[in-house]
C-alpha cells in the first residue's frame, strides 16, 4: 500500500511516482521526457496561471491584468484552481497544488507527468514546432533581455513595443510555409553576440554628432524592394523590414514572435492532449488499485474526481455552449480502446482499419502521435460517442429568425455532425487570413494588408482599428487594411492607421 488516508508527504510522493512510472513505462510503454515535480501553494498557482503556465516570464502589465482577474475571481469563489499545471519542456515540469490529497497527487502525477508528458513528447505538432529542451533557457534569456532593455531605454519604451507586438501575436506564426523547429539556444546566443558586438563598437563620440534631418537613405533605401510578399507572418515582416525600429526593438518583437510560436500547437490539440492524459491517469489509477497499491477509498476518490472533470453538460445546462475537452477527449479515447477489443458491427463498418485489432494501446499511441484535434475527430469520432453525448447540429442563418436543427445522432446525421465538430477545431478555418500584400517604399511607405474572408465574417471593427494602430506604431508609417471577399475579390471594409 503506497499510502492510506488523505495526507501525503514527500516520501509518499516519491513512492507513488515510482509505482506510477513502473506502470506507465513498463506496462503502457509511454515515452516521456524526464520529469520534475514541483509542489506549490495556491498563490503560486495563481502566478502560474498568469504566465500561461510558464515558470519564467518577462514583466508586463497584461500579466498583472490576468493576475488581478484570476485573483479576484478566486477570492470571490467564482473559480477554483487546477490541481496541477504541466509545462511542455524537458525536463517536463508538473506543478502540484499543496492542498491536494494523497490520491489527488497520485492522480495528477499520472495525468500530467505521464499522460501529458507522453503527448508532448510524441505528438507531431509538438515535435515539429517546439524545442522543449531549450524553452526554459530561452524564457530566461527573454526575461533578462527585456529587463535589460527596460534599464537602458525605460519601461515606457519597452512597453510600447511589447503592447504592439502582443496585439499582433496571432499573426506571428508561419502557418502555411511550414516551420523549422526553432533553435532557441542559438537564439539567445545570437542576441548575446550581437549585443557584445554593439558594445565593442560603441563610441561615445557618435552621440555628439548632430541628428540627421531626414530618414532618406535609411537602411531600406527607397529602391530596395522588399521581397517575399505576400507575407502572413506580420511580426516576422516587421522584425526584418520595419524601417524605423532599433535593433533592440526588433529583438523584442522576435521574442514575442518566438514565444507565440511556441504556444501555437497547444490549442490545436487540446481535446487530444486532455483525452490522452485523462485516459492515462484513469488506466494507471485502476492498475494501482488492482495491484493493491492503493485502497478502495483512494480509487473511489479518483473515480469521483475524474467524473467531475469529464462531465459534459448539455447545451441547456449552463457551463457554456462548447465542448469540455476532457469529456470529448476521454470519451473518444475510451471508445477507441473499446472498438479495438470489443467492436460491434457498426464499428467494423465505420473503422475497418482498427476495429477488433486487439491492440488498443498501439492504436491510441498512433493517434496521439500523428493527429491534431481536427483530423483526430474527423478520423475517430464514432457514432457511439455521438449517441452518448447526444450531439446535434444547428444551422444559424443570420437571415432567418430561427435556428434550424439539421442533424442529430442518427444514421443520416453522424457524418454531418462529425464533419462539423472537426471543422470547429480546424485552425485553418478559425484563424484570420491576414497578409501583408505590399508596400510602396518610394512613395508614402504605407503598408498594405489584406484580410481574405467572406461577407458576414468581418473583423471586429474596434479591435481591428486598435490593432492596426499598434501595427502602425511598429511600422513607423501609415498602414492600410482591406477586407476582401475571397470568392469574388470585392472589398468589404477598409481601415487606415497612421
Amino acid at each position, binding site marked *: 500500500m503506497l499510502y492510506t488516508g488523505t495526507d501525503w508527504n*514527500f516520501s509518499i510522493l*516519491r513512492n507513488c*511516482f515510482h509505482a506510477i512510472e513502473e506502470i506507465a513505462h513498463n506496462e503502457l510503454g509511454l515515452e516521456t521526457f524526464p*520529469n*520534475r*515535480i514541483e*509542489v*506549490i501553494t495556491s*498563490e*503560486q498557482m495563481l502566478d502560474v496561471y498568469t504566465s500561461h503556465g510558464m515558470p519564467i516570464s518577462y*514583466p508586463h*502589465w*497584461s*500579466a*498583472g*491584468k490576468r*493576475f*488581478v482577474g484570476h485573483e*479576484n475571481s478566486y*477570492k470571490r469563489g467564482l473559480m477554483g484552481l487546477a490541481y496541477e499545471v504541466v509545462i511542455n519542456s524537458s*525536463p517536463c515540469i508538473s506543478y502540484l497544488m*499543496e492542498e491536494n490529497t494523497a490520491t489527488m497527487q497520485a492522480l495528477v502525477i499520472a495525468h500530467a507527468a505521464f499522460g501529458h508528458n507522453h503527448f508532448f513528447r510524441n505528438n507531431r505538432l509538438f515535435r515539429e514546432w517546439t524545442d522543449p529542451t531549450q524553452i526554459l533557457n530561452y524564457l530566461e534569456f527573454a526575461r533578462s533581455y527585456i529587463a535589460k532593455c527596460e534599464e537602458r531605454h525605460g519601461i515606457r519604451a519597452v512597453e510600447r513595443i511589447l503592447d504592439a507586438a502582443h*496585439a499582433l*501575436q*496571432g499573426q506571428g506564426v508561419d502557418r502555411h510555409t511550414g516551420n523549422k523547429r526553432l533553435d532557441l539556444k542559438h537564439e539567445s546566443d545570437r542576441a548575446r553576440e550581437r549585443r557584445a558586438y554593439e558594445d565593442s563598437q560603441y563610441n561615445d563620440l557618435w552621440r555628439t554628432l548632430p541628428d540627421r534631418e531626414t530618414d532618406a537613405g535609411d537602411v531600406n533605401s527607397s529602391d530596395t524592394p522588399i521581397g517575399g510578399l505576400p507575407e502572413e507572418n506580420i511580426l516576422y515582416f516587421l522584425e526584418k523590414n520595419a524601417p524605423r525600429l532599433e535593433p533592440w526593438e526588433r529583438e523584442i518583437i522576435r521574442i514575442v514572435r518566438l514565444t507565440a510560436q511556441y504556444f501555437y500547437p497547444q490549442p490545436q490539440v487540446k481535446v487530444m492532449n486532455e483525452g490522452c492524459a485523462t485516459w492515462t491517469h484513469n488506466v494507471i489509477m485502476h492498475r494501482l488499485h488492482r495491484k493493491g497499491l492503493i485502497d478502495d477509498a483512494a480509487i473511489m476518490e479518483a473515480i469521483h474526481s475524474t467524473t467531475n472533470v469529464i462531465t*459534459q453538460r*448539455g*447545451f441547456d*445546462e449552463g457551463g457554456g*455552449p*462548447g465542448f469540455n475537452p476532457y469529456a470529448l477527449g476521454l470519451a473518444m479515447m475510451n471508445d477507441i480502446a473499446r472498438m479495438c477489443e470489443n467492436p460491434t458491427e457498426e464499428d467494423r463498418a465505420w473503422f475497418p482499419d482498427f476495429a477488433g485489432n486487439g491492440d488498443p494501446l498501439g492504436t491510441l499511441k498512433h493517434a496521439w502521435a500523428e493527429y491534431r484535434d481536427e483530423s483526430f475527430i474527423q478520423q475517430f469520432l464514432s457514432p457511439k460517442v455521438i449517441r452518448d*453525448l*447526444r450531439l446535434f*447540429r*444547428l*444551422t*444559424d442563418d*443570420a*437571415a432567418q429568425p*430561427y*435556428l*434550424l*436543427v439539421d442533424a442529430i445522432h442518427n444514421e443520416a446525421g453522424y457524418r454531418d455532425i462529425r464533419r*462539423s*465538430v472537426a471543422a*470547429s477545431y480546424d485552425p485553418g*478555418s*478559425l*484563424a*484570420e487570413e491576414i497578409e501583408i500584400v505590399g508596400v510602396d517604399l518610394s512613395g508614402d511607405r504605407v503598408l498594405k494588408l489584406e484580410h481574405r*474572408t*467572406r461577407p*458576414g*465574417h*468581418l473583423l*471586429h471593427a474596434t*479591435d481591428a482599428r*486598435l*490593432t492596426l494602430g*499598434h501595427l502602425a506604431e511598429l511600422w513607423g508609417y501609415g498602414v492600410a487594411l482591406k477586407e476582401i471577399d475571397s470568392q469574388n475579390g470585392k472589398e468589404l471594409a477598409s481601415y487606415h492607421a497612421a
Partner: protein
Amino acid sequence: MDIIDRRPNPHGKNTENRRRVLARARDAVQSAVRTAVAQGRIRDSAQGNTVSIPADVLHEPSFHRTFEQGVRQFVLPGNREFIPGDRLRRPPGGAGGQGGGEGDASAEGGGEDSYRFILSRDEFLDLFFDDLELPDLVRREIAVATTTANQRAGLSSEGSPSQVDLGRTMRHSIARRIGLKRPKPERLREIEAEIEELEAKKPLLPEAYERLQLLRDERSALSQRLGRIPWVDPVDLRYRRFTPTPKPTTQAVMFCIMDVSGSMTEKMKELGKQFFLLLHVFLERRYEKLDIVFIRHAETAEEVDEETFFTDPRTGGTVVSTALELMIDIQKARYPVSQWNIYAAQASDGDNIASDTPIVASQMAERILPIIQYFAYIEVAGSGAIIRNDSDLWRCYRGLAETHAQLAIRQVRDRREIFPVFRDLFARREAEQLRGA
C-alpha cells in the same frame, strides 16, 4: 526525477505586474476612486475599496472575426427532443453558440465590461491624492503634538506590588525551589505520620527504634531546609516595567462648519461637502483616530450628525460667530489641545451680519487661531460679493490670513475647482515656508 518543494520560494511574483497594471490604468482607477469617494459618506470613503474601471482601458486588441451575417453551423451536446427540421427560437444576445465563427481571441476581451481592483487603503489614497501631490507636501506641514505615555518595557526585579507579574514570579520560584532541592511538604508530613505511628507503639523493637531515630533526624533536617528555603523569595519577584515614551498624538478632530442660511443653495453646499470630504480623507491618512464635528449655523449654531448636516435644509439669517463660539465650546469640553490636533474647515457664501464681523475677527484671532493646526475657509460662489472680492467674511479673514499662516482662505466657484483649490491651500503654505527659510 526530481521533487522540489517550491512553497518556500519568494512570494509576490506578480506584485510588479500588479503595480504596472495599476499604473497603466491609473487615470481610470483614479476617476473610479474619486467617484467612490464622492458617492460614499465621509466616514466610509477611506476604507480599503473595490473599484471597477471600464474594461476597455486594459483591453488588449487583436485581429479577430465576428459573425454577423451569412450561415454557420455548430454542434452542441445534450440533445433530448430535437429531430432534424426543428426550428428553435434564437436565444437573446446573438446565436446560441460560438462554434464556428469566433476565434480564441474574442473570448478574452469580449465578455468583460468592467474590471475590478481591490485596492489597499494606501493604494486607494495614493491614487486619490495623486495629482494633488499632497502627501509629501503636507507631511511637513501638519504639526504633530507629542505626549508621553507609559509603555510596557519588559520586566524588572523591583516595582510596586500592584505590578507583580504573578506568572513570571512563580516560574522563577519553582525553578529556584527545584534547583535548591527544597523538600516537599508532603514528604515531611509522611515522615511525621510515620514517626507518630512508631511512637504510638509501646514495646519498641530495636529496629523500630533505629528507624525512629533516623526519621527524627531526617525530619529535623527537612524542616530546617524547609525553613531556610522560602517558597517565594524576593529574588523571584518580577514586576511589569513601564517606561514613559513620547508618543505622537495620533488623534485629530476636524470641525466642519457650514453656513446653511437661506443664501446658501444646494449647489453651494455640495461644493462645501466636497471640500470637507477631501480634508477628511486627507487627515484620515495621517491620524489613527479622527473625530469629525459637524456644526451648521444660520442665526444660531448647532451640532448635528453627518446626515442632517448635508441633507436637512435650514433657512434664516447668518451669524457666523455663533458657530465659532460653539466650536470653541465643544473643543474645550471634548478636545483638549494637549491631546488633539485640531482642524477646522468652514464653508460659507461669505454673508454675515455686519455687526457680527468684528466679533468673528476677535474670536478667530484670540481664541481659535492660537490653538488650531489649520483653518481652511472656503467661500463658495453665488453672491455678487465674491466677484467684487469683498464679502463680509472674506474681508475679515483676509486681514487675519496675512498674519496667521494657519488660516487659509480660498474661493470656489465650481466643482472642478475643488481639487486645485485644495492643493493650492497646502502648496501656498510650503511656498511661504520656503520663503521664510
